[in-house]
C-alpha cells in the first residue's frame, strides 16, 4: 500500500468499508477530507442544505437498507447541526457513522473559530465516539466505528477528526483492517438455550397469547422467522410504531399497532393476554400507558439483544438476551420439538376462544373508514393515507414526520414488508421525513418513496427541496395540511379546553405549490375528496419528478384510539371525541 494522508485514508477507508453514499456538508475543518474525496474516491457524496438533513438522509438510507448511514460534517455549527439527527438515530437504534471535523489539535480548548466539544456534546446520544489523536490510527478507528455502529444493538458512532491530522503533506502507511476485536465490546451472539426452552414451554401453554413485535425485529432481520413462528402457532401479533412491517400488516393475524394510538383490538388483546412474547421491543411509555397497570395477567417473555432493555420498565418472567434472529430460530426449533412430543399443544380450544374474543373486539371498534362526525366536504386525513395505499399498491417506502399525519400513516397504511415504514419513533423528530426520503430514494431509485408530512413538520427541513433538485430525487410529498400543528392542537383540545396556544400560523403558510415550483418541482393542491385519487395517481405517474401534494384536510380530526392518561391501563382508550372504553 502506498503512503496516504489522513484525508486520503478517510476516502479510502470509506471505499474499503463498502460505503455507498456519504451525506455531508463541507466547511473549514474538513476541507482536506473534501479535497481527498474530490481527487480520488469512488463513494458519491450527497450535498445537503443543512447538516441535520445529512444525518436524517443517512438514517433513512440505513433504515431502508440495513447498512450503516455515513455523514461528514465540519466542526462547530456543522457538528451541532448534526446533533438532532444523531439523537434521532440513537433513540431508534440506527447504525450510523458520523465523521466530524475538528479544529487543529493545538487549538483545541482555546475557543478557536468553529470549535465545539463534539465528543462532549454528543456523548449521551451516541453508542460510542472516538477522538482521533494520530493520523495513523484513522483506519483502525474507522473500522471500529463501523463495527460498533452495526453490531449488537446498533447506534450512531461519532469520530472527531482534528484538521491537522488530515493535511495532505503528512503521509503514512495505510492498510484497512479486515476484522476488529475489542476486549471491552462483545455483544451477545446467541440466546441462553435453557431460557429459550423455558420460553417455548410457556408459549405453548398459553391460553391467551400475543406476540408484541418491535423495531428490533426489523433491525435484527427477524421478520421472516417471527412471521413463521406466528403462523405456525396461529398466535395474534401486534407491533410497535417502530416494528410495523415486521409481520405482514394485511395478514388477518395482525391486530395492528399497539400503544397510545394503537388499534382497539391490539390494546385489548395485550391487556387481557396471559402470555406476551416481546421481541425487539422496549416497553416504551408510548406503549405501556401506566406501567403498574400494564397487562396484569400476563407472563412476559422478552427477547432483546440489549440486556439493559430487559426488565428496565416491565419485569420479564423469562428474559432472553441475544440477537432476535438467532433466538427466534432456536425458539422455533424448541417449539417444533415440543409439538412433536405433544400434539395437544398449543391447546386449540383455548386459542379458538381467544381468537373469537379478538374478532369481537375487532368488529366492535375496527378503525374508522368514513366520516366520524359532522358533515363537510373536507377530506379526512385517513382517506389520504388510504388513497396513497391504493395508488402505491401498498408497496411503497413511506417516510413520515412527526404528529397526527404520522399516526394516520401508521394506522392506515398496512406494511407487509420490513424496512418500508421509516419514521422517527423514539425521539419524535419533526423535519425527519423529507431528508429521510432522500436517503431511501438514493438506495432504491426504482421504488416509490412517499413522505407523509404536515405543514408544520415539512417546514422544519423544507430547504432539502433544493437537494432533491440537485439529485433528481423523485419523492412524492404527501402534505396533510390542516393549518394547525395538529397533534399539539389535539392535546390542547383534549386537555386544555381547546386553548390553541401557539399551534396555528395565522395565515402565514407559504403557497406550497409555488414553493415546490420555485425549486423546480411539481406542486398540486387538492381540496376536494373527489379530486384526491386523481391527484394521487397523477403524482405517482410522474416517475421522475418530485411532486408536492398539498392536501387540505379536515382540521378538526383527531387521532383515535388514544390511551387515557394519566393512570390508565392498556385498555383505557378514547375511541372518538366522546366515546371511551
Amino acid at each position, binding site marked *: 500500500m502506498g503512503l496516504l494522508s489522513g484525508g486520503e485514508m478517510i476516502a479510502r477507508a470509506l471505499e474499503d468499508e463498502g460505503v455507498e453514499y456519504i451525506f455531508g456538508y463541507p466547511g473549514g475543518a474538513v476541507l482536506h477530507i473534501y479535497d481527498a474525496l474530490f481527487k480520488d474516491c469512488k463513494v458519491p457524496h450527497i450535498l445537503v442544505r443543512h447538516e441535520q438533513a445529512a444525518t436524517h438522509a443517512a438514517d433513512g438510507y440505513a433504515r431502508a437498507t440495513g447498512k450503516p448511514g455515513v455523514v461528514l460534517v465540519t466542526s462547530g455549527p456543522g457538528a451541532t447541526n448534526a446533533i438532532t439527527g444523531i439523537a434521532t438515530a440513537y433513540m431508534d437504534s440506527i447504525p450510523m457513522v458520523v465523521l466530524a471535523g475538528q479544529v487543529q489539535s493545538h487549538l483545541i480548548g482555546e475557543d478557536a473559530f468553529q470549535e465545539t466539544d463534539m465528543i462532549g456534546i454528543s*456523548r*449521551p446520544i451516541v*453508542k460510542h465516539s472516538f*477522538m482521533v489523536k494520530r493520523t495513523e490510527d484513522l483506519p483502525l478507528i474507522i473500522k471500529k466505528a463501523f463495527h*460498533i455502529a452495526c453490531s449488537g444493538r446498533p447506534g450512531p458512532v461519532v469520530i472527531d477528526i482534528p484538521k491537522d491530522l488530515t493535511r495532505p503533506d503528512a503521509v503514512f502507511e495505510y492498510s484497512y483492517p479486515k476484522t476488529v476485536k475489542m476486549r*471491552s465490546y462483545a455483544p451477545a451472539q446467541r440466546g441462553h438455550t435453557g431460557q429459550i426452552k423455558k420460553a417455548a414451554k410457556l408459549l405453548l401453554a398459553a391460553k391467551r397469547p400475543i406476540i408484541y413485535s418491535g423495531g428490533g425485529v426489523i433491525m435484527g432481520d427477524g421478520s421472516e422467522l417471527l412471521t413463521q413462528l406466528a403462523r405456525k402457532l396461529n398466535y395474534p401479533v401486534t407491533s410497535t410504531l417502530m416494528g410495523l412491517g415486521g409481520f405482514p400488516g394485511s395478514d388477518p393475524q395482525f391486530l395492528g399497532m399497539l400503544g397510545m394510538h394503537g388499534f382497539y383490538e391490539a390494546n385489548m388483546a395485550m391487556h387481557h393476554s396471559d402470555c406476551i412474547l416481546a421481541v425487539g421491543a422496549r416497553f416504551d411509555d408510548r406503549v405501556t400507558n401506566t406501567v403498574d397497570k400494564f397487562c396484569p395477567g400476563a407472563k412476559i417473555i422478552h427477547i432483546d439483544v*440489549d440486556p439493559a432493555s430487559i*426488565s428496565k420498565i416491565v419485569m420479564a418472567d423469562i428474559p432472553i438476551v441475544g440477537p432476535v434472529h438467532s433466538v427466534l430460530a432456536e425458539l422455533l426449533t424448541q417449539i417444533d420439538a415440543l409439538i412433536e412430543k405433544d400434539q395437544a399443544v398449543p391447546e386449540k380450544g383455548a386459542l379458538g376462544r381467544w381468537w373469537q374474543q379478538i374478532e369481537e373486539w375487532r368488529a366492535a371498534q375496527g378503525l374508522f373508514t368514513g366520516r366520524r362526525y359532522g358533515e363537510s366536504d373536507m377530506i379526512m386525513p385517513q382517506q389520504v393515507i388510504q388513497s396513497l395505499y391504493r395508488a402505491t399498491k401498498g408497496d411503497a417506502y413511506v417516510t413520515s414526520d412527526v404528529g397526527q399525519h404520522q399516526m394516520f400513516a401508521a394506522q392506515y397504511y398496512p406494511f407487509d414488508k420490513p424496512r418500508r415504514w421509516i419514521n422517527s419513533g423514539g425521539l419524535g423528530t419533526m423535519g425527519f421525513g423529507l431528508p429521510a426520503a432522500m436517503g431511501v430514494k438514493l438506495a432504491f431509485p426504482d421504488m416509490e418513496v412517499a413522505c407523509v408530512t404536515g405543514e408544520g413538520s415539512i417546514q422544519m427541513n423544507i430547504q432539502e427541496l433544493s437537494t432533491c433538485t440537485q439529485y433528481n430525487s423523485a419523492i412524492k410529498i404527501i402534505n396533510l395540511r390542516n393549518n394547525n400543528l395538529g397533534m399539539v392542537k389535539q392535546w390542547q383540545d383534549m386537555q386544555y379546553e381547546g386553548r390553541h396556544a401557539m399551534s396555528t400560523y395565522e395565515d402565514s403558510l407559504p403557497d406550497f405549490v409555488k414553493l415546490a415550483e420555485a425549486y423546480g418541482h411539481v406542486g398540486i393542491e387538492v381540496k376536494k375528496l373527489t379530486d384526491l385519487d386523481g391527484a394521487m395517481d397523477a403524482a405517482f405517474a410522474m416517475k421522475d419528478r418530485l411532486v408536492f401534494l398539498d392536501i387540505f384536510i379536515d382540521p378538526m380530526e383527531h387521532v383515535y384510539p388514544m390511551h387515557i392518561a394519566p393512570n390508565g391501563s392498556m385498555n383505557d382508550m378514547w375511541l372518538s371525541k366522546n366515546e371511551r372504553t
Partner: protein
Amino acid sequence: MRRIISMLMENEPGALSRVVGLFSQRGYNIETLNVAPTDDPTLSRLTLSTVGSDLRIEQLTKQLNKLVDVVKLAELTDGAHIERDLMLIKVRATGAAREEVKRTTDIFRGQIVDVGPTVYTIQLTGTSDKLDAFVAAMAGAEILEVVRSGVAGISRGEKVLSL
C-alpha cells in the same frame, strides 16, 4: 441501600466522562468516586459508591456494562469485600485542643502527617463509617479542611476483578 461498584475501563481520554455522564443522564447519584490506573497502564480501575434499590442497581450495572470503554464490572457489595476511604483532615490545634486532637487521632489509629504551630493535619484510613465517626469526634475542635479519596475496594479471598 449503599452499593460499591468497581470496574476496569480502558485508560482512554473520555472514558471517565462517559461513566460520570451516564449517572446524570439516567438520574443516578454518585456518592463517591475513585479512579486511577492499574498495574496494566492500559486499564483504569474505577470504584464508585451509590445508593439504590436492587432493580435500579441492576439497570445501572447493565447500562455501565454497555459503555464501550468499560471492560469488566463487579458489584463489591454483592459479597465479602474490603473497602477503604482515605481522609486528610486539617484541624486547629492550639491550647488544650492540641492534646485532645492528638489523643482522638491515636484512638482512631490515625497519623498526624503535618504539624504547624497552630494546626495538625491528620491522615486516617478505613471504612467510610469510621471516617464519619472521626469527623463527628472532632466536633469539639475547629475543623479547617477535609479531603477524602472516596471508597476504593477489593473482594475478599480468591475472587478478582481482572481480565
